Every structure is written in structure tokens, then in C-alpha cells.
């Protein structure tokens, strides 16, 4: 009985794991369907996660996109717009199914969205082959840069670290410890510091520390101990989402925040995660392409309209989705009567400066924004914890 129990238990544990794999593999999609009417409204696809760990970011982006459309009477470039949505999900497979629906079934003229880098890597080729522009509002790994029919209104993954490198080398005044989440994006940031921080005279206190991704039910404590062993002057880290919350809290609770200034790409303390980190985040210096307190007319208008509509301040994620509306509006207007997918693609390449809430930016050679990055500090203002711009860090990719 006992042996049977034990074997049954192990088998079931395996079966449990297999079931969740199967469930994600079974999401196919049907092909064929309606032809988009050439004289009718422009059809734009929105591919964002409806569920899963990225849902929060997806909601931020849906809000930014909706706000732009509402401000423009539901039109882009003066033409009626029909927005069709698909679920990006959590995995490349769900994103592929969603992209297939928007391309083959709905025959969209352009598609916006995509939160996860893994999704974008999986679907970019589909858009390049179908000759339909894909405007990523968030995901932007280094390996998809510069491909035809692929645009980003967000950033390039490693640019915050590229922008930060020189500043760190000049201002920290000692070696830094580098700790990142152990997956593609984390390694991109290690490489980015190699090209910006080291040539400027910066020095690492030891080997980069790789923390498991995602950290899940584990603790960062053993990795914080590696930092202590390196005896650095300051610490640079890359974490996002739930990992960012946990890292910042444990960094504070285990006493490291009082010893080593923490620097990071700004996603560590942007949006929902900052609220969860609370006071533990105060004092963190980070680099991002946007901050709600940026002093320009477009931003003041954007922040007040967004806050009024959704009862919460916008984030860098909502700005990137808002800007997707902005660039499509101008590209479709320029394409005139025949706003086909190819025409929109051509016009996206000729836009020049975009007057965004984050300040003016333009598409670079790699089809991602050439934009200013800002040094921000997390501060407590009254009851609210918020990022405050300290200075400009530079314009990587210029």
C-alpha cells in the first residue's frame, strides 16, 4: 500500500505538470474569414494579454490606447477605426494564435501591442512575411531590431543601461555589484553595461550575480549575501514585475539599502510595482524614458486627461500605447485614401519628430524610438510614493 501510494503520488505530480503544459499547447486558432473592406474603416489589431502575469501592464496599455482614440473621436488620420482585439496571453504560443487571428482572420492593416519579449520574438517574422506593420508598445528585445514591418514606440530593452553607464562610472566613486534576473533581458543589461559603463572607466566589484527568474516562492537572501561578499560601493540591478517588488523589499529589510545605493532600469519602480514596494523603494535611482512630472505641454495635458479618465496616474507603459495611436494617426493621414498595410509601413518611416508626452522622439534606423532617458529618484510626496526626475541621462542610439 505504501509503495503504491508513493509511486502514485510521484506519477500524479508528473501528470499535474504535464496537464498544465498540454493546456497551453491546445490553444489553436481557426483560419480564413472576412476580407477587410478597402473603402471602409481602417482595421487595427490590438494584441495585449487579457490574463496572466502581464495583465496589469496590458491594462495600462489598453488605457493609453483608448485615451488617444477617445481624444480623436474614435478616428485615426481622419478615418473611422475598427479596433479588433486578440489575447497575447503569457506564452509565445498564445501570442502566435492571437497574431494569426489578427492577420489571417481579421486582415488588419496594422497591429499594436505585445508586452512580452518572448511573444515579439515569436511573432515578428509572421508580420514581416505578411507585410503588415506590427507596432510593439512594449516588448523590444535587441534581436528584433531593424526588421521590416516591425516598429516599437517603447524603447530598446537595454537602452536604460546604455544611458546609465557613463553616469554610474562618473558618479558612484567605486566598484558596483551587478545583479540581474537570469533570462535574456537580464543578460542584455549585463552586455549594455559592458559597452557604456566599462569604457567610461566603471569597475565591477565581482562577477555579475544571476538570480533565478522568476524568483517565485524563493527568497533573494542568498543572492543578497553574494553582494555583501563583493563589498561594492553601490548596486545595479534589473528586475521587473513581482520580482521587482520582492527584490526591493528584501534589499531594504536585509539592510543593504542603507549601505549601498541601488540603481536600476526604471521598470524596477514603475506603475503597479511601486505601489506594492511602498516605502522600501524610497531613494532608488533609476533610468526611464518617461516620468509623470516631465515638464512639457503634451505631458501636462496627457497626465490630467489620463488621471481624470482612469483615476490613477499614467505610466511609461500607457504613454507607449498612447504614442502608438499618435504615430498611426499621422501615418494613416499621410497615406490618404489608400491606407493599405504597405502604405502605412512606408509612411511610418517618414514621420520625423513625434510630439509625445515623454518629450519629442523619432524612429531610429532600428525602427525603435531615439529618445531622451531620465535619471529619476523615488521619493515620498505626502502619502504618495513617486518617481521624480533629477536630470537627463542622454539619448542612446542617436
Amino acid at each position, binding site marked *: 500500500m505504501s509503495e503504491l501510494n508513493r509511486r502514485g*503520488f510521484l506519477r500524479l505530480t508528473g501528470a499535474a505538470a504535464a496537464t*498544465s503544459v498540454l493546456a497551453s499547447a491546445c490553444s489553436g486558432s481557426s483560419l480564413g474569414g472576412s476580407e477587410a473592406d478597402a473603402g471602409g474603416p481602417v482595421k487595427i489589431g490590438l494584441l495585449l494579454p487579457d490574463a496572466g*502575469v502581464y495583465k496589469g501592464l496590458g491594462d495600462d496599455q489598453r488605457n493609453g490606447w483608448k485615451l488617444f482614440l477617445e481624444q480623436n473621436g474614435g478616428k485615426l488620420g481622419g478615418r473611422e477605426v475598427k479596433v479588433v482585439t486578440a489575447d497575447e496571453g503569457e506564452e509565445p504560443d498564445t501570442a502566435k494564435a492571437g497574431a494569426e487571428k489578427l492577420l489571417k482572420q481579421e486582415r488588419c492593416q496594422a497591429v499594436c501591442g505585445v508586452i512580452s519579449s518572448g511573444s515579439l520574438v515569436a511573432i515578428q517574422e509572421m508580420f514581416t512575411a505578411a507585410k503588415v506593420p506590427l507596432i510593439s508598445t512594449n516588448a523590444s528585445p535587441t534581436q528584433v531590431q531593424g526588421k521590416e514591418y516591425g516598429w516599437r514606440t517603447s524603447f530598446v530593452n537595454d537602452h536604460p543601461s546604455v544611458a546609465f553607464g557613463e553616469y554610474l562610472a562618473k558618479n558612484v566613486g567605486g566598484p558596483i555589484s551587478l545583479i540581474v534576473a537570469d533570462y535574456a533581458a537580464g543578460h542584455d543589461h549585463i552586455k549594455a553595461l559592458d559597452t557604456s559603463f566599462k569604457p567610461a572607466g566603471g569597475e565591477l566589484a565581482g562577477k555579475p550575480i544571476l538570480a533565478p527568474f522568476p524568483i517565485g516562492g524563493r527568497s533573494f*537572501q542568498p543572492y543578497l549575501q553574494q553582494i555583501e561578499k563583493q563589498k561594492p560601493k553601490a548596486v545595479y540591478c534589473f528586475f521587473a514585475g513581482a520580482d521587482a517588488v520582492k527584490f526591493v523589499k528584501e534589499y531594504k529589510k536585509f539592510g543593504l539599502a542603507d549601505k549601498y545605493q541601488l540603481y536600476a532600469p526604471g521598470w524596477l519602480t514603475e506603475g503597479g510595482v511601486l505601489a506594492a*514596494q*511602498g516605502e522600501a523603494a524610497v531613494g532608488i535611482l533609476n533610468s526611464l524614458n518617461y516620468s509623470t512630472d516631465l515638464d512639457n505641454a503634451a505631458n501636462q495635458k496627457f497626465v490630467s486627461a489620463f488621471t481624470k479618465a482612469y483615476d490613477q496616474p499614467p505610466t511609461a507603459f500607457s504613454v507607449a500605447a498612447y504614442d502608438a495611436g499618435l504615430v498611426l494617426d499621422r501615418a494613416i493621414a499621410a497615406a490618404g485614401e489608400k491606407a493599405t498595410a504597405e502604405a502605412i509601413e512606408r509612411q511610418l518611416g517618414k514621420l520625423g519628430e513625434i510630439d509625445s508626452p515623454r518629450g519629442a522622439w523619432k524612429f531610429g534606423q532600428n525602427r525603435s524610438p531615439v529618445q531622451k532617458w531620465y535619471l529619476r529618484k523615488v521619493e515620498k510626496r505626502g502619502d504618495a510614493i513617486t518617481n521624480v526626475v533629477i536630470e537627463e541621462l542622454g539619448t542612446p542610439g542617436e
Partner: protein
Amino acid sequence: MGVIGWLDANLVSIVDGVAYGLLLFTLAAGLSLVFGMMDVLNLAHGTLYLAGAYLTFLLSGGGWLGFFAAIAAGIAIGAAGGVLLTAMTQPLAGRGHLDQALLTIGVALIGAEVFLALSGGDPLPASEPAALDGSISLLGHVYPTYRLVFIGVAALLALLVYLVFERSTLGALVRAAVADREMVQALGVDTRKVLLAVFAFGAALAAVGGVLGAPIIGPAPGVDESVLVLSLVVVVVGGLGSIRGALLGALYIGQVQSLGVALIPEYAPFLLFGSMFLVLALRPRGLAPVARPA
């Protein structure tokens, strides 16, 4: 570096490993008993932890009152969840483990979706009482106050569970029901009541683990799954159906995940399952299996 120096350098990791191990115990104890006694593999066990952690977010605003309210609510909701799960799984008792596993996975998936709808996908802030929300000096090292208190409370809880199950008459009855249900039935005991009580108790323990553990492993999407996997490993390592095994397994996995990772970080990805493999190779039935008739 002498023994003292080594202990000093790794003290924080060792202490944190104990905290982590005791947290895993609150989950593994119920999981192990329920499987050992009822032959039910409850894959919704992580959901109970998540529910408890969510209660901390909901009720504990940094005050003592809110925190104790969260604990009380955790006990109530956990026990109710256990009764509900018993009612759901009992009709499947004759249909083998796979059907039960599918049912409880379904419950876990629904739980995860409900949590997602409630939280909007963001990790939620679950705070400890403000009085414990700092750090203290532990022989010259900074350590979070709450975790130290947690070690004390969870150790008491573990001791209590141990004494009830291993040293009391009631515990003897439960252990007898694990070892040979038919024989206990033959003695005139309604084992169904015993089973229901054990399921409710194990579930309440997991939910309370979630309430107390929320400031350490907070409510976020996916936490239910990761704590479930860890507690399954603990149960495999410790031996099925035994409180002593769950405690030993939890403390062992706690040290592996804390001290082990601190000492050999380059092998961190393999440590958890490597250490499980090691135990299975040396003690195939776990560290402290239940004695059963052959």
C-alpha cells in the same frame, strides 16, 4: 576562517533558511496528511496559501487588529475550503488519483483566475504589523524583525501540531487511520469524520501559513503554483503522511534553498531537485516515513 567565522558569515542565510523551512512546513503538513490519510492529492493546496496571503493584503493595514483579523479569517476560510474540497473529492474516491488531481487542478486554475481578477495581475502589498516592520541586529547582522518573530510563532505552531499528532490520543487515532483505515473502521470509529477534520485542519494550516507568510512570500500571480511545487518536494523528501517527515523535509529544503544557494550559487538551479534526488537515492521512502504494515 574557523567555524565561528564561517557561522558568522552565513548566519543570516541559516536563520532565513529556518524561517523559510517553517513556512513550507505549514503547507506541507496538510498536504502530507491529506494524501497519507485520504489518498487525495490536493493540487489546490497552493491556492489556500494564496487565499491566506490575499487576506493579509485585504485586512492587515499595518495594525495588530487587522493582522489578527486576517489570521482568524484565514482559519475560517481555510477550514471551510478544506470541508469543500473534501465534499468535492470524496465522490471521486473510487475513481483513482488522476480524477482527483484533475479536479483539484481545476479548482487551482479557477482560484488563480479569481485572484487575477481581484488583483488586476499586479503583486499586492501585504504588510506585517507596523511594530514589526523594521530590521534588527542579529549578532551584528541586519535581519528583518518580522521574520524573526515568524520563526518563533511558526516553531510554536509546528510544536503544537507535532504534539497533537504524535503524542495525543487524538493524534494516535489519526495516525492509525493513516496506517490502516479498515482496521480503525472495524474498531467502530467513523473514519470519515476523522478524515474531514484532518482535511479541514490541514487546509486551515495552509491558509494561516499564507496569512503569516504574506510579508515574506506575498500575494502575486503564480505564487500558488510555486509554493505548491515546493511543498510537494517537501512531502516527497519527508515521507508521506507523517508530521515529523514534513517538518524534517521542510527544514531540509529551507536550508538547501537558503544556505545551499548562498554557498554554491552557480549550482542554484539544480539544488532543489538535486537534493530531492539525493534523499530519494539514500532513503527511498523519505526522511521519516510512516510505519505501515507490509
